[in-house]
């Protein structure tokens, strides 16, 4: 890691190559070391702990070694991360627990329709590079709201930018911390709530001392772990099955076999037409509108998510920002074009070795997952052979062989169980767990930093510091009171630490934190104060996210999808119009952001949390089944139920997530919000006074890579 800025970039680049080359070699050696330990009959759980703690320790060392006391290092890693390495860091930033663990499972269940996520989560980088990223790099912002404020007349637009950022990033980071909890608890047998806090410590060690600089260098290390972990099991599997170590090429064969087997299962009565979704048949899970809607929302959302855009603030030049988007997608592509192979190999295994097999001779690998409640056969958890046999005997007319409709698998199992299905040693399972953890931690780091930076840079430094001192104390007091009140009101549950209620634990922690910070604060320089605030806020946001995750909110995974739609509706029109149309005005952008984001949020909240009101007052109707075209719920019947108008119901509510306009899933609400945003910005701009000649000249500057960053010129 270069510490002197005087170093030439070629030397820096070479040095990085050497460092990460050594690191990768070291990691491979570590895997071999653990494999040897396994041969020496060291128990599996110790191997699992070794993997998790070794990788966490490496991230923490990098995080501490790259600590910084400079503002530009903290916010944008000093703007000297080479394109190739920034691409790798973005890859880790981008690929979350959902990509690593969930994607293959979705493809397993939904077949072709699941590819909407693969397409949506890759194609968006084209928009990043062509429309937004390089221009923001030239602008020279620290955060996305920085750009909003500069382009659209100051702090109101900045504040809206912060709201959009927090709305889409907070739920997302909660989902990542939840993911670390799931992975750690499954592989290490830790209690979920404690696992969440182990993950939290890992995240804080990476991000707190060095900000963006530390996150960048740890994310590169995390990418290397996660990609090795993702590819190793299927490369071995492909070699075993087809003799070629390139699963992306061989799984075509598996798909052909799956399709043949599907026909066979239908003919022999092992599957019913209703239970079987043919793997390559399109539009059986999503209607064409929702299929293309997901692709579009995920793509445009990619180009609007602040934690992704801010990665391109760190490159040395605009040119490298563009190249870096290419490298990002390349590194992401390596994982995404392998995910369908996971799905195909697992499905073939399930269809040939589980379905149609005599109940009494089921392969034992699935009992470990059955014990965790993740695989069910004949309606009961597949805990052991006797339980399965008993459960199937309980079904009237059961033929004694497992049928497709008897078998239920949780989507998370697909990636996690592949090593066992392939009969690989436990070391590979440990590797996969370390990879999943790396994916969740790296994304959580990026998101946390995005939120904390927006709060410390935009809210504190740009909005609160410039206030007159009397007003400043008032604002800080109000915010402090709001934080304390929300802790008291929202977090009554017991924490994992001796069951002390969350609220007292957090208030105590807050008091201790303030006491710890005061000695550093008094007499500190302005720069030091900025960084103290940034770190304290990072800590607070992280704890809040972990506390939320430990309550296991039921909608957490859906919320990740929502984040894309919210980002898209709130940010995309203002960013694109701000760069590409000089005539767009302050009033127009503010109206556009409120309208687009508002409509999207409205659609989400009503369809999920107030569905009865949506039907009664906003003309919403039932969504339709994609295959038969029949409504999912009988609206008249459901509205007659006593709980029809209930607000904030659980997912079991007959109407929740099942109503809407135009048969549009609520995950696609950006499809409503974004066009409205563009329209409002366009129309209102025409009716308001054009931006000043000075501002227009700055926009010209953003469009030309040469020269100083615009923000530095102005301030």
């Amino acid at each position: 890691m270069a510490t002197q800025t005087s170093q030439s970039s070629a030397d820096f680049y070479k040095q990085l190559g050497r460092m990460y080359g050594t690191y990768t070699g070291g990691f491979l050696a570590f895997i071999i070391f653990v494999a040897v330990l396994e041969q020496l009959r060291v128990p599996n759980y110790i191997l699992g702990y070794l993997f998790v703690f070794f990788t966490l320790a490496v991230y923490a060392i990098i995080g501490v070694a790259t600590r910084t006391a400079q503002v530009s290092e903290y916010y944008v890693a000093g703007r000297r991360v080479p394109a190739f390495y920034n691409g790798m860091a973005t890859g880790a930033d981008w690929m979350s627990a959902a990509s690593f663990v969930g994607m293959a499972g979705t493809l397993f269940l939904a077949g072709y329709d699941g590819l909407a996520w693969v397409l949506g989560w890759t194609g968006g980088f084209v928009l990043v590079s062509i429309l937004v990223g390089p221009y923001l790099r030239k602008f020279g912002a620290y955060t996305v709201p920085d750009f909003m404020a500069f382009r659209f007349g100051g702090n109101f637009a900045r504040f809206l930018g912060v709201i959009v950022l927090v709305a889409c990033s907070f739920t997302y980071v909660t989902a990542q911390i939840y993911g670390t909890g799931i992975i750690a608890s499954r592989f290490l047998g830790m209690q979920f709530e404690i696992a969440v806090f182990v993950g939290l410590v890992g995240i804080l060690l990476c991000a707190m001392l060095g900000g963006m600089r530390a996150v960048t260098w740890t994310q590169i290390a995390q990418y290397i772990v996660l990609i090795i972990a993702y590819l190793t099991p299927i490369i071995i599997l492909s070699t075993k099955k087809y003799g070629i170590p390139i699963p992306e090429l061989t799984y075509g064969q598996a798909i052909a076999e799956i399709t043949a087997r599907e026909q066979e299962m239908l003919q022999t009565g092992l599957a019913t037409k209703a239970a079987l979704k043919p793997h390559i048949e399109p539009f059986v899970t999503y209607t064409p509108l929702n299929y293309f809607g997901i692709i579009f929302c995920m793509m445009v959302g990619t180009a609007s998510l602040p934690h992704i855009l801010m990665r391109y603030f760190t490159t040395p030049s605009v040119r490298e920002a563009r190249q870096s988007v290419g490298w990002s997608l390349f590194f992401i592509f390596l994982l995404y074009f392998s995910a369908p192979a996971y799905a195909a190999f697992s499905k073939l295994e399930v269809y040939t070795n589980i379905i149609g097999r005599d109940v009494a001779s089921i392969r034992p690998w699935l009992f470990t997952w059955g014990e965790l409640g993740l695989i069910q056969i004949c309606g009961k958890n597949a805990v052991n052979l006797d339980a399965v046999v008993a459960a199937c005997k309980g079904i009237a007319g059961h033929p004694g062989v497992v049928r497709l409709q008897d078998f239920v698998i949780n989507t998370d199992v697909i990636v996690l169980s592949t090593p066992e299905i392939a009969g690989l040693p436990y070391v590979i399972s440990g590797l996969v767990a370390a990879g999943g953890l790396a994916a969740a931690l790296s994304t959580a780091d990026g998101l946390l930093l995005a939120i904390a930076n927006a709060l410390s840079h935009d809210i504190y430094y740009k909005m609160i510091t410039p206030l007159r001192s009397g007003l400043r104390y008032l604002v800080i007091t109000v915010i402090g009171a709001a934080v304390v009140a929300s802790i008291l009101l929202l977090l009554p549950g017991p924490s994992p630490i001796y069951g002390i209620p969350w609220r007292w634990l957090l208030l105590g922690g807050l008091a201790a934190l303030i006491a710890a910070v005061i000695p550093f604060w008094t007499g500190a320089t302005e720069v030091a104060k900025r960084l103290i605030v940034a770190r304290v806020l990072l800590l607070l946001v992280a704890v809040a996210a972990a506390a939320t995750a430990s309550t296991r909110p039921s909608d957490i995974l859906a919320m990740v999808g929502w984040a894309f739609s919210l980002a898209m509706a709130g940010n995309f029109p203002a960013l694109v119009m701000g760069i590409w149309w000089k005539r767009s005005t302050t009033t127009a952008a503010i109206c556009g952001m409120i309208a687009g984001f508002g409509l999207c949020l409205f659609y989400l909240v009503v369809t999920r949390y107030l569905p009865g009101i949506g039907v009664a007052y906003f003309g919403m109707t039932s969504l339709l089944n994609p295959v038969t075209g029949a409504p999912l719920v009988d609206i008249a019947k459901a509205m007659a139920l006593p709980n029809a108008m209930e607000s904030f119901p659980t997912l079991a509510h007959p109407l929740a997530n099942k109503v809407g306009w135009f048969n549009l899933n609520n995950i696609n609400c950006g499809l409503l919000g974004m066009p409205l945003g563009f329209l409002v910005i366009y129309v209102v701009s025409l009716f308001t006074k054009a931006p000043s000649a000075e501002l227009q000249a700055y926009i010209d500057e953003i469009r030309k890579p040469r020269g100083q960053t615009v923000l530095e010129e102005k301030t």
Partner: protein
Amino acid sequence: MQETNDQAHWRRTTKLMLAHLGIWFFFGYVIHMFVNTLNQYTIPILKFPLGFYMAAQGSLIVFVVMLFVFAYQQDKIDREHGVAEDD
């Protein structure tokens, strides 16, 4: 009116943007609308149905290649108009 260097640069940048957005739209959406037709063809040796293959790998490869081509083309435009950064 004589076009200034900046205007010419931006005109070419815009044209490049539209061209790439066109390709993006084609491989992101249009081609997948014909998935059923494409699925009637199978890629020889690999045995993928073509429609499935395009969504699982084909379009992705196009996106990756496109981004590097775009970075190269945009840089060329910047250099020709003298607004590229120094190497």
